[in-house]
């Protein structure tokens, strides 16, 4: 066993030698980087100094601009012919140091590091730096080959707004269906999600499985949706209403129906994602106006949504059956007493709601993109959020709510992680229930 003293005598000489070498090398190093050549900012004014060397493939880079800011202080510096820079800062604290990438030679960028400390912005690559025990801190960036494409924030914002509007409009198609069915029958119908999927799966069946052109496939898919809405009401919902099932029972039946249909889709199309036929010309983004970029598919999709939504609004406001629908929504027994055939109108609402949901499914299959067995289910909670936000049972509330939810979902990834973009919509749902449960356009007594 070696005592502490013995240990020290053993290593004394090598340690001293090592120390001497260290001093010598430090002296040499300080000679090599003569301060006179380095570009310095405020190094004589402040004690705390950040420094670094900008090199690419061991070649120093001259004229690269760096920015130091933090704690109300900011400075900039440009590298000398040795690629060296030094900046003095007033406090021993954290500072952001940014390398301005536009001052690097063409084709050279700051390489991403594995720990993810570097953040890339429009200005350049930024790291956070802090002093250790000494008054000096060296900050070096690793450079690599590459081209940085930083989309300006305003472009990303506009892109997200357009996506949000597009998504909100297709959400509105599904939401209005749900809201109309809720308004006339009182059921919060969970299987509406599967009507969304059915539209997309129908288009898949006709245009991919059978290989027919998409302009035949989509109308056929909508006819299939209409048939599904009609059959549903005839075979399930009307008999159950006549049987005297309560609203809650009907809602749970719709959950079971939704579960069964969803897995029926998985049985037929499997668990993966399939694409509808598209032409690359129609999906590539075109410059429309300033920072707005849209593809032909985006524009057609938005146009279809707007036209269909306007038609539904016209139908509700000015036609006999539309007025009857609103009357049943307000008071079912009074409507029946004044000669409205409630069963007939309810069946029409089922057909219309299913077609709208199917259309929204087809458009969403292009927007996502892809068809999946549970895609409608992914949309369902957003539909509920939109409908509750606008006012449960009000058609126009569903439209307003959908646009807001659509924008919220698409704008979230600008600031937060994209994998929680649906969470915001669900939080909105809770907040609305807390402060204005009747929704934006709902009447207070409906909440009861």
């Amino acid at each position, binding site marked *: 066993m070696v005592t502490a003293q013995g240990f020290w005598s053993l290593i004394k000489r090598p340690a001293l030698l090592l120390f001497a070498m260290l001093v010598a090398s430090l002296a040499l190093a300080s000679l090599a980087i003569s301060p006179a050549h380095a570009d310095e900012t405020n190094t004589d004014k402040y004690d705390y100094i950040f420094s670094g060397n900008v090199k690419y493939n061991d070649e120093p880079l001259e004229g690269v601009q760096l920015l130091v800011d933090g704690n109300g202080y900011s400075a900039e510096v440009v590298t000398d012919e040795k690629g060296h820079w030094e900046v003095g800062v007033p406090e021993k604290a954290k500072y952001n140091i940014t390398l301005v990438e536009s001052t690097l030679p063409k084709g050279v960028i700051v390489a991403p590091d594995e720990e993810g400390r570097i953040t890339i912005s429009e200005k350049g690559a930024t790291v956070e730096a802090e002093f250790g025990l000494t008054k000096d801190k060296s900050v070096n960036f690793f450079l690599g080959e590459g081209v940085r494409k930083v989309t300006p924030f305003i472009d990303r914002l506009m892109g997200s707004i357009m996506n949000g509007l597009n998504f909100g409009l297709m959400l509105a198609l599904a939401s209005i269906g749900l809201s109309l069915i809720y308004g006339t029958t*009182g059921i*919060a119908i969970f299987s509406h999600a599967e009507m969304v999927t059915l539209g997309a799966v129908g288009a898949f069946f006709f245009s991919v499985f059978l290989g027919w052109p998409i302009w035949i496939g989509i109308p056929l898919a909508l006819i299939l949706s209409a048939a599904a809405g009609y059959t549903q009401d005839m075979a399930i919902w009307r008999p*159950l209403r006549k*049987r005297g*099932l*309560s*609203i*809650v*029972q009907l*809602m*749970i*039946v719709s*959950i*079971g*129906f*939704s*579960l*069964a*249909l*969803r*897995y*029926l889709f*998985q*049985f037929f199309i*499997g668990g993966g994602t399939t694409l509808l036929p598209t032409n690359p010309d129609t999906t590539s983004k075109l410059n429309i106006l300033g920072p707005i970029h849209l593809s032909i598919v985006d524009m057609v999709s938005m146009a279809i949504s707007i036209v269909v939504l306007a038609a539904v609004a016209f139908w509700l406001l000015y036609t006999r059956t539309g007025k009857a629908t609103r009357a049943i929504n307000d008071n079912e027994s009074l409507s029946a007493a004044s000669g409205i055939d409630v069963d007939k109108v309810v069946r029409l609402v089922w057909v219309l709601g299913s077609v709208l949901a199917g259309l929204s499914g087809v458009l969403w299959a292009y927007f996502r993109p892809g068809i999946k067995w549970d895609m409608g*289910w992914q949309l369902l*909670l957003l539909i*509920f*959020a939109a409908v*509750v936000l606008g006012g*449960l049972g009000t058609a126009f509330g569903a439209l307003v709510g959908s646009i807001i939810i659509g924008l919220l979902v698409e704008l979230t990834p600008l600031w*937060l*992680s994209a*994998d*929680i973009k*649906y*969470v915001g919509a*669900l*939080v909105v*749902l*809770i*907040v609305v*229930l*807390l402060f204005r*449960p009747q929704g934006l356009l709902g009447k207070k007594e409906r*909440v*009861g």
Partner: protein
Amino acid sequence: MDFLGILSQTASWILRPETIAYALATMGLAVHFGYGGLLNFGQAGFMLIGGYGYAISILSLGWPWWAGILVGIGASIIFAFILGLPTLRLRADYLAIATIALAEALRLIVQSTMLDDVTNSADGLGGYHEGFRSANPFPPGTYGFGPWTYNEAELWIRVFGLILLGLAIWGVWALMRSPWGRVLRGIREDEDAVRALGKNVFAYKMQSLIIGGILGTLGGVVLVLPSAVVPQVYLPSLTFFLWTILLLGGAATIWGPVLGTVIFWIVYSFLGLFLPEMVNAGWIPGVTPSQMGVVRFILVGVALMLIVIFRPQGILGDKRELSFNARK
């Protein structure tokens, strides 16, 4: 076809941690819906809180395993308040939508890469077993017989789960025959009548939401005791399976949730083994075994519909004590 093997595996599902966990969570739903008339469609969220509360307390905070259970219970009480405050004064279907939405939001948040350090995002959590296993009172060895043969760790999980389940059954039974339980059932039948008697309906509903939520949380703990916390488990489908179990056994009964769970798991696991085997044996042409594996999910949905339509009181329920009130 190895029919005996399938039967033996099916029989093992009568006593599995999953079975006990589902029974506990369904007991919770019985307190919510069967006795209180509350449409909670977010029971998966309470189970998630149990699982994550347990695992995170052990892994990130280094607390003992029993403290992990208490953390889960505490978190589920907070969750019940967040759910109940905005919705318990509103019509029943609002609670349904809010609960399913919040449970989904919770799942998306724990799955998000933003919380990767704590929740390990989509990969889930594991390796928190040491504390619970070292509390095992059973000496190493093999216990049981036939399909119910366990080593000491498996036995300890089952015994612990059964103790929790036994306490839950006794607790719910005692609560529901107490004056508190009678008021709660009164609220289910006619809220306004109970309010007219001077009872604070909102407080009773909130207490029911909390108690049922704690049972769901305990179910969540038992579910993660054997192996790992997997975020994809806590889908809304889990809640709907619990609802199917509840309505099958009888929503407003003490033994309904247990009976429903055992029947559910026997049928569900039998179909999971038998249906693909039918394809392998060449009985059903033109269908792949994995396709056939999906059929049992379709059958759960159909079963839920049929139960609600034709026997809403469940196997053990009393037709007079129907818990679906048509309040609108």
